[in-house]
């Protein structure tokens, strides 16, 4: 191997190691904060479980349908997995609460590594929540699994990543945590409503159904329904996942353009 090629390989390895270092560094700190604050756990795990138990299939209008409780559970899991928008946004705002934003501005890590590290813990929690709820519904609530668990996992991963990208975008374009929180709750409720996570899409008015096509929730539920009640066709799952990932890419690109490490927020005191 020529010395030049060897040197190029070595610097590429160093760059990758540096990237991984930054992702891991931010992710570890975020994970510690989330774990010790506990509130994220309540919203992501306990609230959807409680709502599923309290409201059950009644809210979905599915009382008589087979596996209705399981389907309602998935709906609530999809809905509350989008709390990842709020928690991803908070992960970025945290640096302004604790004045550590200056340090990011000073060392200026790669935007991608920084964003990935920041959202990774919230993403992972939401993903685990989706898998747990689906698994629980399949095991105990009569939810059929016509496809594979891999289809559920792929759809869940795409959904939470789209939520994180949206959280990053909302952080980049807002100036305070209060604004971010309000917008993310608005997103949570409206996307869930028109996307069919609260009431099944067939029961929605036509205009709501049309709006629903623009939400990741609709596509996630389409894929999840295919994996559970449907025929488990990969084409449907992959098509739905591709739409969700396109939504993710658009949000991430817009966030990256809008975000600057030197930005100041009203939360900075």
């Amino acid at each position, binding site marked *: 191997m020529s010395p030049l090629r060897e040197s190029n390989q070595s610097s590429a390895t160093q760059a990758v*190691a540096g990237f991984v*270092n*930054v992702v*891991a*560094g*931010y992710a*570890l*700190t975020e994970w*510690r*904060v989330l774990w*010790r*604050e506990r509130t994220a756990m309540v919203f992501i795990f306990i609230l959807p479980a409680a709502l599923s138990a309290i409201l059950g299939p009644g809210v979905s209008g599915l009382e008589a349908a087979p596996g209705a409780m399981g389907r309602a559970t998935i709906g609530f899991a999809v809905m509350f997995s989008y709390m990842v928008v709020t928690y991803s946004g908070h992960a970025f705002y*945290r640096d302004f609460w*604790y*004045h*550590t934003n*200056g*340090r990011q*501005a*000073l*060392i*200026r*890590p790669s935007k991608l590594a920084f964003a990935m590290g920041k959202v990774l813990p919230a993403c992972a929690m939401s993903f685990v929540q989706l898998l747990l709820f689906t698994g629980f519904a399949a095991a105990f609530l009569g939810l059929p699994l016509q496809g594979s668990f891999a289809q559920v996992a792929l759809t869940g991963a795409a959904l939470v990543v789209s939520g994180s990208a949206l959280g990053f975008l909302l952080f980049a374009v807002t100036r305070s945590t209060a604004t971010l929180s309000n917008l993310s709750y608005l997103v949570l409720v409206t996307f869930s409503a028109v996307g069919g996570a609260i009431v099944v899409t067939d029961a929605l008015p036509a205009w709501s159904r049309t709006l629903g096509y623009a939400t990741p929730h609709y596509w996630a539920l389409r894929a999840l329904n295919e994996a559970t009640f449907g025929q488990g066709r990969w084409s449907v799952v992959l098509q739905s996942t591709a739409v969700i990932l396109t939504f993710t890419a658009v949000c991430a690109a817009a966030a990256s353009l809008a975000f*600057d*490490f*030197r930005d*100041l927020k009203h939360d900075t*005191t």
Partner: protein
Amino acid sequence: MGLLGANGAGKTTLLGALTRTVRGTAGGSLRLDVGALPARRAIGYATQALALYPMLTVEENVGHLASLLLRRAEAKAAICRAIEEFSLGSIARTRVHHLSGGQRRLVHLAASFVHGPPIRLLDEPTVALDFEARQLVVKRVRGWREEGAAVLITAHYPEDIEELSTELVLLRDGTTRDLGELGAVLSSQSRTLLLQAERSASRSESTSWELMLATGRLDEVRAKLGELPSDVRLSELRLSGNRLRDILLRDPSLSSFAEGTEQR
């Protein structure tokens, strides 16, 4: 280098501009020669506001920046060194929200410079510190200077600059005035003689007079007192009618210099 200025003079803004952590509207560029070191590792900046995650321990806070900038083995050694430098060993596993303001300030300094940067900027580093902690910071800053690091410090209080710096820059209304070596600034200042007397009639009031003397030891001042011509405000002193209470001789200090420049 010490950067001295009143509230709102622009000290923090200047540090922000130097570190490119704030957006600038105008100005030039700054070239720093830090050898082969990447820029992100060359500068450390301890902001005036404490930059700490309250839910994390001292060790985790100090380790955060190290984990982003250094390799794992390097980071581990750097964290130990920073904790030892600021005598934080006994509270290393304590969460920051349990600590006092002074302790947090020390953790903040340790976390800001954990990567051992050759250029260190400190914005009001002694705020909220008790005497002992302040002495520790003074010792650390002098140690960094001796190790070859370039240190820039801002302060409201001249005493901090006097103890921590060798050169002085004065900042007022966003404009800097390079005053050169601190020793030269101080030696250009006069010694001040302070006489305090009590009125004979009612001893409740006291009056003081300040006379500026270019040079001299205390005995010379005494000698000069006797030789002072009658028109040098001694008419106001009226020592004959009052009781001389105290004579104070003040060495030149940055405080008196700063007071003088403020008045001017």
